[in-house]
């Protein structure tokens, strides 16, 4: 789920208020009893399709782009440039495109870019650990700043931490 940006301006007040996401415009109910109704399923279904649609708009071009880069051989060229750095983390150089997309945009782009690479379990896990800690840095950094936390410092910390963890897991995990 990628929450819409507008939610950061109209701040969700309480956990239960997070219900009324900007995507589906359910009428604001003052006091709602706890319980799963048909409406829950309907809302979940609708929202998942909306999310999927908005993601596809990002995902499809990115997967296609990487696939074309891959088939044309350019991905290998880019990969060679980044290979020494990524080798420390046990990743092939071609993963750099996915990492860059993940750091700057979101996880969906990163996964899209990494799909054609056929990573091993170890590589995919390292890739995942690094990105799960550090992703969508510009947007999430702004969100953190808006909440009053030191966004820039935390963002730098995430990036360094993600890389450190990738190095560490690569060192501790024997084999490929």
């Amino acid at each position, binding site marked *: 789920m990628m929450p819409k940006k507008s939610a950061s301006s109209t701040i969700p007040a309480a*956990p239960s208020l997070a219900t009324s996401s900007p995507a589906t415009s359910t009428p604001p109910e003052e006091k709602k009893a706890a319980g799963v109704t048909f409406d829950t399923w309907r809302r*979940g279904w609708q929202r998942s399709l909306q999310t*999927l649609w908005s993601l596809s708009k990002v995902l499809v071009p990115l997967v296609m782009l990487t696939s074309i880069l891959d088939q044309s051989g350019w991905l290998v060229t880019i990969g060679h440039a980044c290979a020494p750095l990524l080798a420390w983390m046990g990743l092939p150089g071609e993963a750099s495109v996915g990492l860059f997309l993940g750091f700057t945009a979101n996880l969906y782009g990163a996964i899209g870019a990494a799909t054609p690479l056929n990573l091993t379990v170890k590589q995919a896990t390292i890739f*995942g650990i690094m990105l*799960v*800690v550090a992703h969508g840095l510009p947007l999430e950094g702004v*969100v953190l700043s808006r909440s009053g936390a030191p966004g820039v410092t935390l963002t730098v910390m995430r990036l360094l*931490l993600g890389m450190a963890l990738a190095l560490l897991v690569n060192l501790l995990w024997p084999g490929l």
Partner: protein
Amino acid sequence: MTFDITAVLGISLMEAAKQVGKMALILIPIIIFLEILRDLQIVDRGARFFGPAMRYFRLPGEAAIPLLVGLVFGILYGAGVLVQEAREGKLNKRQLTVVGFFLAINHAAIEDPLLFTILGANYLLIQAVRFGVAIVLTLAFAAWYLPPIKREQSERQWAAATESSGPVSRKELHP
């Protein structure tokens, strides 16, 4: 280098379609599941449950709400609750920084690691590393950055949090 554009485009389009399909398989159940969590108000209840544990992070019980919301629904919602609590004076700037620290590392914990199983990653390892690192680093950071909570104060939190049962309202959590 000759380059059959239709073939290349065709292959890339197929890859993209496969990817969207996999994403649908993961996302649709997750989002429906999150809707169910919301309507059962499990997060509100969980916040009450975890309130007392917040003292290990040297935080007041109220901090459990933004933490849990961020962990389940994502950083955007967690930060939203954070702003609100700060505005109401329930968290000061330093406490808010500690909550932000945790959430920066670990948020949307149901969804994020699951996405990487598409690539064949080890789900449990990703989850364990992320939670482990977030908890350990936040404990260390809080111990250094925040003053210790007074004993009497934390006992009052215990009492408030364990007092009555039944569905929680925010009012009960913050009398």
